[in-house]
């Protein structure tokens, strides 16, 4: 495909020189800007407190000692934080799918009275960023209206708000809208219940969008900081981001860095494996050109 620079001018000798110089500059620049900080983090955690404070710094750590990582794991109880975060993200994922898929299916295919109004009210929440509603939402979690229960320090404080995601409902509904009606009507005539139609026809063909929503929901909860900071104040209940941040002041520098490495490994790993879905999710919400 033809882009900004014509293939013809790329083939001239000067075009080639410019192209390869740009390529090398970009590759080095990107590596320096985005990979080098991560390299500095991983190796920083291998250094002793003396070495990490030394000027000028050593480019390679003097000895390959994983002991700091072990210290971080034990002193910061990272195991507990990680286990908590898995619980929060996993539960939020299941909740989000159960709640948003059924809602989107109802709005798209069952078309109840006031369906348009409900969809509108759900999409309207996208216009108001959660940050500005932080205080009233916190008060809801602290003292649930009607039930008068406190969700603080329980996983529900993460799971329930995570499911109230207008963007996911929008993505799912738009996908369900594209499933041909005839497919569902045939099943309906055969006497299949709506739940049956959802589970055996709609869900199997919606696998791509379910993948996108799944990854987005897990990553969102995993990366979230402000909300878990407020609703999970107990040290044993903290998510990994909040846990490290709240203990960071008492830690030696290299132990803190090691805990940062451990905290970023899961998301980087997820990115390695699900790169395509994540990038698809990135452009799913935005529009075509």
């Amino acid at each position, binding site marked *: 495909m033809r882009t900004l620079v014509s293939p013809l001018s790329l083939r001239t000798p000067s075009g080639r020189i410019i192209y390869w110089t740009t390529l090398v500059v970009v590759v080095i620049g990107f590596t320096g800007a985005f990979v080098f900080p991560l390299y500095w983090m991983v190796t920083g955690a291998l250094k002793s407190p003396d070495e990490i404070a030394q000027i000028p710094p050593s480019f390679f750590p003097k000895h390959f000692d994983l002991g700091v990582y072990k210290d971080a794991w034990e002193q910061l109880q990272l195991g507990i934080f990680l286990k908590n975060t898995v619980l929060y993200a996993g539960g939020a994922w299941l909740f989000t799918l159960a709640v948003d898929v059924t809602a989107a299916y109802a709005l798209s295919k069952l078309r109840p009275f006031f369906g348009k109004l409900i969809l509108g009210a759900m999409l309207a929440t996208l216009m108001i960023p959660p940050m*500005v509603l932080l205080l009233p939402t916190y008060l809801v979690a602290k003292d649930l209206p009607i039930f008068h229960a406190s969700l603080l320090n329980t996983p529900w404080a993460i799971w329930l708000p995570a499911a109230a995601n207008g963007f996911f409902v929008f993505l799912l509904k738009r996908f369900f809208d594209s499933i041909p009606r005839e497919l569902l009507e045939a099943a309906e005539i055969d006497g299949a219940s709506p739940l049956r139609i959802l589970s055996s026809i709609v869900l199997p063909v919606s696998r791509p969008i379910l993948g996108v929503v799944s990854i987005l929901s897990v990553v969102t909860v995993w990366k979230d900081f402000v909300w878990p900071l407020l609703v999970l104040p107990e040290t044993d209940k903290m998510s990994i*981001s909040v846990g490290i941040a709240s203990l960071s002041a008492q830690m030696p520098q290299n132990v803190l860095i090691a805990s940062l490495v451990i905290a970023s490994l899961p998301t980087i790993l997820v990115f390695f494996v699900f790169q395509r879905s994540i990038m698809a999710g990135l452009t799913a919400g935005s529009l075509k050109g």
Partner: protein
Amino acid sequence: MAATRTLARRPRSAGSAGGGGAGTRGGPVEEDRDQTGALRRAVGRNLTAYGFLCGALICFALFSWYPMIREVILSFQQNNFVDPGQWVGFDNFRTVVEDPAFRSAWLNTAAFSCLALVIGYAVPFVLAVVLNELRHAKAYLRFVVYLPVMLPPAVAVLLFKWFYDPGAGLFNQVLDAFHLPPLSWLDSTSTALVSLVLVSTWMNLGTGTLIYLAALQSVPGDLYESAELDGAGLFRRVWHVTIPQTKLILLVMLLLQIVATMQVFIEPYLLTGGGPENATVTVAYLMYQYAFNFGDFGGGSALGLMLMIALLVFSTVYLRVSREAEQ
């Protein structure tokens, strides 16, 4: 069987007879059966639909819709959450506006958004345009630029806190390697805010770059071709072809970024605590302080409401633009 069917149909046929429109002998009966069937189906369909919707309705009501109303109520009340709240009119707003930190918070938030626009808005577009021309290492570059986005923000921010260390921190070491004088980064009123913008840009740059890159794929190649035939150079082709062809996505991203950066919280919370001398207090951070450090939810909500109204302006424009783009 026959009896129930008659029963079910009786009130309706009376109604339709009252309407006076009974035609042929078989007609109304057939029609009635259809109507009751349709009605029953509609009721059944609605019941199922609301059964499916109830989980979402509860979650949205509790954590999205009710908080919007509650925010407004809170900001006009004095509340200790034991006794019922006292209506105090605009008192909370007055308290907040008279706070010396209020002015700094809005100015800093505006400055943060503007700086983030200057650095963080144009750079991803330029990167995307360059990436789109490269024929090699594409997968690597796309992967690498998105890597910081995948880090939990708290991790990225704490990592930069270490880099900003005035002594052995990476940034001053790099400056030293180029024989430049060291900076005090987070500790000086003149550089603290810029330092926050740098972290925020570093960890969000990848999103914009990849979205622009996707948008650039849909720019038709023959436009470049004819522009080139007309004698347009490289920069004029960017100006007259690339930018007009992607202007909607550019506008959408502009608004999204303004909305995102105006809520900045985690950077001042973890890096500076609003200091030095209120140089990095932002509106969201001040709102947090009011509620959780001063125990004043009324003042905090008043700030939240002001921020919400400011952001709604941008969101409304965003909605207009994106709807236009869908067509």
